[in-house]
Structure formats: structure tokens, C-alpha cells
């Protein structure tokens, strides 16, 4: 597992090195010219707007069972599209299309909260390690290495399985924990990279307090890599959350509208109405792809090597 760990580390470390060396405007210009970046940005923007305005966009109440749909709903047949119901019924006699739209909210919440959570804890650990150094650094990094060396999905499964039963919270925690070591290593790395940079050396020479240096100079300069990593983490969070749902480790409440849950519930109806599985899956794939494209092109834009 060593070399995989090394690769994981290297990816993070490369990103960390780009801290503070990039000019935001420069990076932005390069991004705008990159079709991959633009595609990613458009998808992400559309997804965020959709999840904000979904309740107004949804033509029907996503939680209500409609008599028109219940009329023809049977255990082994689910009504297809009909006037007023663009994609027909779900397995409950509710409007599938509206649910699909509204589900974007929950998926975004899972992704964002998990990323924020993992990012915050990771950055706290990484920041402490980077700022204090010494044995604190050694201990914290040893711990993150252990977490980092376990395959991420396996780690998420184990953590989610620790809970006595699945819920939204356990899924978020499981997905968040997986990203903690990455953020920790990232922030520490970028702070170390800056330790010997001119502006930090100058500040130290001028007798500025270490705390001030860390908060005024080092942290803001590390923001770039952190944002890149957060974008990428959002993509994996959404996929991991869906995977946990599939394994039955998520929140089983069928009233909730969330793509991962919709996808895992639709397994029983694959031969009845394949769309019930297809659309949530496509939604997850497209959104994950959007975040990945955006994140990868951001990373490239920030990479000093590419500026030659």
C-alpha cells in the first residue's frame, strides 16, 4: 500500500506547493480559455442554481401522492409520463420529475456539508501541524498518514457501519472523515512551502509575530489549493454518499428526496421503470463530473509547471 499512499501524498503535495505562487487573475484568464474548465463551471453553476431554486422550479409537490398517478400504480407497474407529470410517477405515486429536481438540494447539502466538515477539521489539523512543527507535527502527520493509507471508500464504509443505523448524519460524517487527512496534509504542505518564501522570511526578519504571519500571510496564500481540493472533494463526496446509500448504510426514509437514495431504492424497479434508476444516476454522474472538471482545470491553472 506504500506506493499508493505515496501517490496520494504526492498529488496533495504538488497542489500544496502551488500555494501563494499563483496570481489569481492569471489563473482565471487561463481557465476562461480552457473549454474543460468552462464546461465544469457551467455544470456546477447550473447545479447550484437548480438546488437553490428547485422548490420553485418543481411543477408539483414532490412529497404528495397524486390520485391521477395512484390510479394506475401497482406493485409491478409504475405509470409513465402523462399530462402534468413530465416523467410520470415514482414508486409511490409522486411526481418523479419534481422529486428529481428537489433531490439536488439534499445531494448538494451532503456534498457541501461533508466537504466543509472534512475541510475544517483537516485544515485545523494541518494548520496546527504546519504552524507548530516539532512533535505535534510528527504525531498529527503520522495519524493522517494512517487514515490516508486506508482505501477511502473502505474507510467511509467502515465509519458508516460503525453507527447502529444509517442516517444522513452518519453518511456525512463518514464521507467527511475520509477527506480530513487530505486537507490536513494539504494545508501543512502549503504552509511549509511558504516558510521559506520571500514574504514570510521578510515578515519574520521584521519581527512580526508568528501568529500574525500564520493568519495574515500563510493562510490566505494557501486558499488556492484548498479551494481546488474542496472542488474535487465535493465530487467524490457525492459519489461516496451514493455508494453508502447503495450498501444500505444511508438514511432509509423513503420520503426524503435525494439522488443516492433514489438510485438505491430504484434497484427493485429496474425492470418496471428503468428511468427511476437512470435519471438519479445520470444526475450524480454529471454533477460529479462537473466538479471534477472544474477542480482538475483549477489545479492545472494553479500548477507552476504549466506557466512556463
Amino acid at each position, binding site marked *: *500500500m*506504500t*506506493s*499508493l499512499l*505515496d*501517490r496520494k501524498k504526492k498529488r496533495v503535495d504538488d497542489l500544496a506547493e502551488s500555494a501563494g505562487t499563483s496570481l489569481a487573475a492569471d489563473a482565471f484568464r487561463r481557465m476562461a480559455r480552457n473549454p*474543460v474548465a468552462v464546461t465544469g463551471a457551467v455544470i456546477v453553476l447550473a447545479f447550484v442554481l437548480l438546488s437553490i431554486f428547485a422548490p420553485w422550479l418543481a411543477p408539483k409537490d414532490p412529497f404528495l401522492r397524486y390520485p391521477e398517478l395512484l390510479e394506475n400504480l401497482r406493485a409491478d407497474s409504475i405509470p409513465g409520463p402523462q399530462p402534468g407529470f413530465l416523467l410520470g410517477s415514482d414508486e409511490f405515486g409522486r411526481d418523479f420529475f419534481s422529486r428529481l429536481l428537489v433531490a439536488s438540494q439534499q445531494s448538494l447539502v451532503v456534498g457541501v456539508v461533508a466537504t466543509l466538515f472534512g475541510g475544517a477539521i483537516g485544515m485545523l489539523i494541518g494548520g496546527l501541524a504546519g504552524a507548530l512543527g516539532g512533535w505535534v507535527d510528527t504525531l498529527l502527520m503520522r495519524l493522517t498518514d494512517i487514515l490516508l*493509507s*486506508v*482505501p*477511502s*471508500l*473502505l474507510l467511509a*464504509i*467502515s465509519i458508516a*457501519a*460503525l453507527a*447502529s*443505523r444509517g442516517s444522513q448524519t452518519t453518511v456525512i460524517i463518514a464521507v467527511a472523515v475520509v477527506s480530513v487527512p487530505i486537507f490536513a496534509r494539504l494545508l501543512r504542505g502549503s504552509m511549509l512551502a511558504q516558510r521559506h518564501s520571500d514574504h514570510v522570511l521578510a515578515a519574520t526578519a521584521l519581527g512580526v509575530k508568528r501568529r500574525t504571519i500564520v493568519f495574515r500571510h500563510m493562510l490566505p496564500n494557501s486558499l488556492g489549493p484548498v479551494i481546488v481540493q474542496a472542488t474535487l472533494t465535493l*465530487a467524490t463526496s457525492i*459519489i461516496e454518499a*451514493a*455508494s453508502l446509500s*447503495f*450498501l*444500505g*448504510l444511508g438514511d432509509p426514509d423513503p420520503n426524503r428526496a435525494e439522488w443516492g437514495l433514489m*438510485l438505491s431504492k430504484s*434497484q427493485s424497479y*429496474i425492470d418496471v421503470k*428503468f428511468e427511476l*434508476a437512470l435519471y438519479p*444516476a445520470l444526475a*450524480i*454522474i*454529471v454533477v*460529479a*463530473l462537473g466538479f*471534477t*472538471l472544474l477542480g*482538475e482545470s483549477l489545479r492545472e491553472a494553479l500548477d507552476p509547471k504549466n506557466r512556463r
Partner: protein
Amino acid sequence: MLRFTIRRLLQAIPTLFVLSVLVFAWLRSLPGGPATALLGDKATPESIASLEKIMGLDQPLYLQYFNFLGRMLSGDMGNSIISADPVLEEIGRALPATIELSVVALLIAVLLGIPLGYLSASYRGRFFDNATIMGTLAGVAVPVFFLGIVLKYVFAQELGLLPPSSRQDADIDATRVTGFATLDGMLTGEWDATGNALWHLVLPAIALSSIPLAVIVRITRASVLDVLNEDFIRTANAKGLQATVVRTRHVLRNALLPVSTTVGLQTGLLLGGAVLTEKVFVWGGLGSLLSEGIQRRDYPRLQALILLAAGVYVLVNLLVDISYAIIDPRVRTS
């Protein structure tokens, strides 16, 4: 050297001990218990309570723990509640299934990934390159289990070309030697069993290979690009060496070094995906044991799986440390 090894081994013991306490405490804290899981639907609360007493679950926790520890130290990890087989036997049966699947998936990833990555680098910036990169990004965005479900739906259910689940047909008469379905057929000369096992491997291996494939394509591409920029390649080209000679003898050989180190131990990555793939294809490997164990609350099985995984993990780390110590004597004294 020996003293160093012994010291490190001794250091591993408290780690494992703490872990065994944690695993034990966690499993006991979960609602529902082995007695409920063992008895079927017809069991009454009284019969469950009685069974719990027989199992010693009414004893104080520390006593239960010492009993558990004692059994474990004598090599008895208990019997699975689902199958009533010794858990170690179960794991022994499941391990070849997972290894078989992972190896084939890795083979697919390597055999497809390296050429794709190489070609992609050769045509850098052109359509083929962009399409490949897009493909790798998309490959990572597709949840493994969904890919498996779609493959199964299309190729097994609708087209009937490939088997939808399990490692071999039910009516294959195969002698078990090593537990590797493909290998056993070769050893015993039951070629139909081997062919059948390979046939069953196709869909799950493709599903499982998707993510390693994407990773390998990207690494190969990156490292080929790095090598192409190296001075000796430029020199070789300048010297007028034949393009194919340059490519095979210099570029590929040098680029494959970082690729091979990565490929070598990608099994870690595969294991995560294996849990999902094995569930989709009812594969019966370690991943199936784990997900089934979680769902049915098979305590002895989960206990054994976690402790074994931790044990292997500690051992691997130990070996790495020891190998470092051999390479660098300074480590020994620190």
C-alpha cells in the same frame, strides 16, 4: 537487526490489543445481538433471552472480553452466524474470490491503461488526447456500482451474453483445490470449469477496473510526457535514431518505472471498489462477506474481518519499517 525487529514486533502488540478492545466494545454497543440474529423469525423474546444467557452475553463486559480474547489467542475466531462455518474458513474461501477478481481487474486496467496513456501522450493536445482525458475524468465520476448494474442489465439480462452473477455456473462440476476457480480447473484438467470461471469474471472485472484504469491512463500519460521532455530523448532524436527505437527502448522503458510502482500495489484502491462490485455481482468474496455481515449483524464475522485487516495492516507497516531499517541503519537506533 534482530533486536530491532523484536522491538517493533512488541510495539505492535499494544496497538492490536487496543484495537481488539475497541472492536469488541463497538460490537457490543450495537443494538440487536447475535442471539437475535442466530434465531429465526419464530423465536420468542424468551428464547432469545435464554440464548443470550447461554452465549454468556449477560456476564459483565470485561469478563466477556477476556473470554473473547482467550478464544482469539487460541486461534478460534468463532463461527459465522449466517453460515455456522468457522469465520476463518469463510475468509479463507472468500479470499481467492477477491484476489481473482482484483487481479483480473488490474490486468484489464494495465493492459488497456498503459497503451491508452502512451498514445494519449504521443498525441498530446489532439482530439485523441482530449477524448482520453475526458474519458478518464468521466470514468471516475461514474459510481462503480452503477456501472456494474448497467453492465449486468445490458450484457446479462437483456443480451444474455454473459452471466449476471456468482463465480461459476451452478451445474459446473468443479473439484476444489486452491479455491481459485480459474486455477483449479487448470490443475485438475477441468478446462470447462476454468473457461466458465473466466466467463463469469468478465463483467465484474470490467466494472471494478474502471477507476484503476482511469488512474493508470493518467499516470502513464504524465510520465511519458515527462520522459519526452528529458534531455536524453532529445539527444536520441537529434542523433537520428529510428523513431520506433526511441519509443520502445527509451521512452516507454523509462516512463514505465513510475507506472509500475503505482500499479504494483493498487490493490488497496481495488478493495474499496470490490465491496460494491461484489455486492452487485453476488461474488462471494471478502467484500460480500463484509456487506452481508453488516446487514445481518454477523458479529463473529465482522470481528474477525476487522481484526484480520488491522493485523495485516500493522504487519505490512512493520515490514516496511524493517526494510527501511535494513536500507538505512540510522533508523535502527532512533
